[in-house]
Structures are given as C-alpha cells and as structure tokens.
C-alpha cells in the first residue's frame, strides 16, 4: 500500500479546470517527481493536496487514512510537511523562530531540541544566523531554512514545490544533495520541479504533468532517456 495515494484529483479556478482528474501514488521511501512546464498545474496539485485550495473532486489517502477533506494544519501532525513554492519563510521572524514554528505541533521539548541541533548540523550557516531576521538571508539560505523548517515537524512525507526556483547553480546542487540525504533518512519525498533534468536524476519515479493531465509516468532514469521528454523538457 502506497504512503500517499491520489485518485482522480480535479481542481477548478472558477470556470477553468486546472487539474483534470489526475491519479498518482508515492510509496514509502521513494522520491517521486512531478515535472511539467509553467501552468501545467504542479503547484495547484500541491496546494490542493494540503487543502490550501478546495478540491473539486478526487480522493487522497495518506498512511491508510482518508485525508481528502482534512484541514491543512491538521495534516502536519499526521506527518505531511510542505515546502511551498517561493519558500514562504517568515521574513520578519528570526531564523530560530522560523525553525521552531516548524515544530509547532510537536510536544516533546527534548526531541524538538534534538531536531533543531540536527538542522544546525546539516546547515551550520543557519546556526550562525539563528538570531538574524530571516528576510536578510540570501535566496539559497532561505531555501535551506524553508526545508529545515518543514523537517522540524519530523514528517513522513515531505512535499517540495519548486525548491530550486531562482537559485544559483551552486545552491541548486546543495538543495538536491539535501533532498537525497533527507530521503536516505527515511523521509518520503514528493518533488515538484521545473528543472526536469535534476529532478529526474534523483527521482525513483516521475509523472509528467501537461495542462492538468498526467501525460507520462515511469522510472526517473527511463524518462531521462525518453526522446519526447528530452525534446520537451530537457532541451533536446
């Protein structure tokens, strides 16, 4: 049984149907990528999964439970954390406050401190800047913070929406290395990316989203070799 199962998800903005009934699944321990061009519906899918926007139809099952209509804030203690597009860190709060908000739903103080230490160990720059206002960090540092903040809830499933957007190549590599590392520590990952090449390279499986529908799916490595995918998303 898959950790996350999405059946016939549909989302509309007024009269425009942005997601036209898509189904996919993410198995425990996998990295699954959802790739596609601008406007394909990647972010809409992510928002609908967490009920930040209403679903028109469909069913979402997580960890054996029907979570179709569960409010966003209740999904966090169940084990779903999302790093939203554009990072959305709290710009006016300090780095440490951002991280602690990530563990908002956890109760055990000792475990929270342990998680915090782990985040600081992974990115020592966050420890150095822990008292600094998060808005003063560079884009790459903000992405590190956003991902660390999400991991502070100790999720089973991490949803990443365009983690490499707007970052320098150096930071893109750092972020993808982190995704692999987090995944090896038993966190399942659903990754939405425009950078198809990078995403397919680390993904176990991937789905290709085209104007609200799943056009293709398969193993990451296979899609990387697929001619039509190469032409459409990888630049020939």
């Amino acid at each position: 049984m898959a950790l996350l199962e999405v059946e016939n998800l549909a989302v509309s903005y007024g009269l425009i149907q942005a997601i036209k009934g898509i189904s996919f699944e993410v198995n425990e321990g996998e990295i699954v990528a959802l790739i596609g061009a601008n406007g394909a519906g990647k972010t809409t899918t992510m928002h609908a999964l967490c009920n930040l926007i209403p679903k028109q139809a469909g069913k979402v099952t997580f960890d054996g439970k029907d979570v179709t209509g569960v409010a966003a804030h209740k999904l966090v203690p169940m084990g779903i954390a999302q790093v939203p597009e554009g990072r959305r860190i709290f710009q006016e709060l300090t780095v440490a406050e951002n991280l602690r908000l990530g563990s908002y739903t956890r109760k055990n103080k000792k475990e929270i401190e342990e998680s915090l230490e782990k985040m600081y160990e992974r990115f020592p720059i966050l420890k150095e800047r822990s008292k600094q206002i998060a808005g003063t960090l560079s884009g790459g540092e903000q992405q590190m913070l956003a991902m660390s903040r999400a991991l502070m809830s100790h999720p089973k499933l991490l949803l990443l929406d365009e983690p490499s957007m707007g970052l320098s190549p150096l930071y893109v590599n750092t972020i993808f290395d982190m995704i692999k590392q987090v995944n090896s520590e038993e966190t399942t990952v659903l990754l939405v990316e425009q950078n198809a090449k990078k995403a397919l390279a680390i993904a176990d499986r991937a789905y290709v989203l085209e104007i609200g529908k799943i056009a293709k799916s398969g193993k990451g490595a296979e899609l990387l070799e697929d001619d039509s995918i190469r032409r459409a998303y990888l630049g020939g």
Partner: protein
Amino acid sequence: MNTLINGLCLGGIYALIALGYTMVYGIAKMLNFAHGDIIMVGAYTIFSTLALMGHPIPAVIVAVVVCTVLGLLTERVAYRPLRGASPLAVLITAIGVSYLLQSIAQLIYGSKSQSVSMGNLGSVTLFNNVSVSISSILTLGLCLIIMVALTLFVKKTKVGCAMLAVSEDRAAAQLMGINVNGIITLTFAIGSALAAFASTFYLMQIPSVTPTLGSMPGIKAFTAAVIGGIGSIPGAMIGGILLGVIEKFALSVPVLAPYTTAIEFGLLIVILLFRPTGLLGKKRREKV
C-alpha cells in the same frame, strides 16, 4: 508637567484600544470598526455591576469577561462566515455590528448619559509641588504593565510567535500546523479584553457613559494605530501615546484648544504623506 502626565494617561488608553485595532488588522486582515463599541459595552457593564455590587474591582473583572465573550461572539457570528469574502463586505458588517451594539445599549439604558463613579482616590503631591491624581498614576502604570505583558507574550511564547506567523503569511502558517481560525479567535479575545481595560481607565478620567461613548476614542485610537503603522504592535503603543500627549497639550493652550481634534487628524495626514505605512509600518520587500 501635569499636562504631560494627563497626556500620557490618555495616550495609554488610546494605545490599549489601538492595540485591539492593530492586532485584529494584522492577523485577521480586517478593520473591526465595532471595536470602539466594545469599550462602550465595557463601560455600561461597569456601570451596571457597580450599581449592583458597589465596588469597582469586581465591576472591572465582569467587564473584562463580558467584553471578551462579546468579542468572541461577534467574530464567530458576524466575521467568520465572511472569511474569504471581499474586504468591503467585512468592513460594512463591522459598521453594522457597531450600530447594532449602540442601538442595543440605547434600548437598555436610554440615550441620556449616566454617571459612573469609580471612587475618588485623591491625589499626591510630587516634587515641584505638582499634584497628580492617584487614578492617573494607576492608569499610566497599569497601561504600561499591560503593554509590556502583551509584548512579552507575543515575542516570547509559542502562541505569540504563531500570531506573528499568521499575520505575515496565513497559508505558510497553516503549513506549520497552526490553526489559523484559533489564532484569529484568540486575537479577538485579547483585543476585547484590552478594550475592557480601556473602558475602565476611560471612566476613571471621564465618569459618565452614553451609547456613543466608544465612537470618538475608537476613531482616535484607530488614527493612532494608523499613525504607528497598522499591524504593528509597538506602532500602536507609540501612536496612541503620541496622540494622547498631543491632545492634552493642545487642550492646555487656549488658542489651540478649539482645534484639538483637527490637529490630531492633521497629524495623521502629515505622517501619512511622509510615511504612507505609518511610523513603524512594514515596507514589504520581496526576495525571489
């Protein structure tokens, strides 16, 4: 000297009310124009409880409870169903709630002003032979304590931090597992409790109550919140105190006294001309 102390007192009252406006605006993104009338309800509650029990302390406690419950009730009944509706609809609803509260008060108590005696605490003589009433000192001291407590609550507690998070980015806050509705409810509760304290201090200065008592301090405190930068907690405190001091100083100069209100609202215009987001208002910077 006396004018300064009176001004600080009045400023403290404005600041308490302004905090209600600014916190609700910051977190629920709405202007609660019924906030001034919560003060009026607090004042009538004190009036009635005082008549029943004869001692101001229980009257204040009852007023805090009544105002908090009223704040929660209006949020639940009038504003929550409109979450996601256009800001204009919410604004008009708030004005409606304001008139509703005033009319109910008028039905119960009539439109004539009723006098409320909080008891004369006398005055003390400070250095330079300046005599200051105890009630002024009490008002000033308690306002300061409440403001410090509120600042510590917001800065140092987990729930306070969650409030700041909701005010900055509601969706991201939800993704942290923060129950946004719960935080909004809490904000209304705190704002209304502060309004109850404001009505207590108001009655200590001006011992009479009418159904429209909340309007003027409400508007002045709203002005103070905008001067300080709406959405900013320290901004509301600074704006409130600034406005209170200016009002008392203007009233103490015979030539300026008739123009006091004009001076206050003029100050608002001048500040907005130079700093459109208020003294401590946020300048949004986006980093991509």
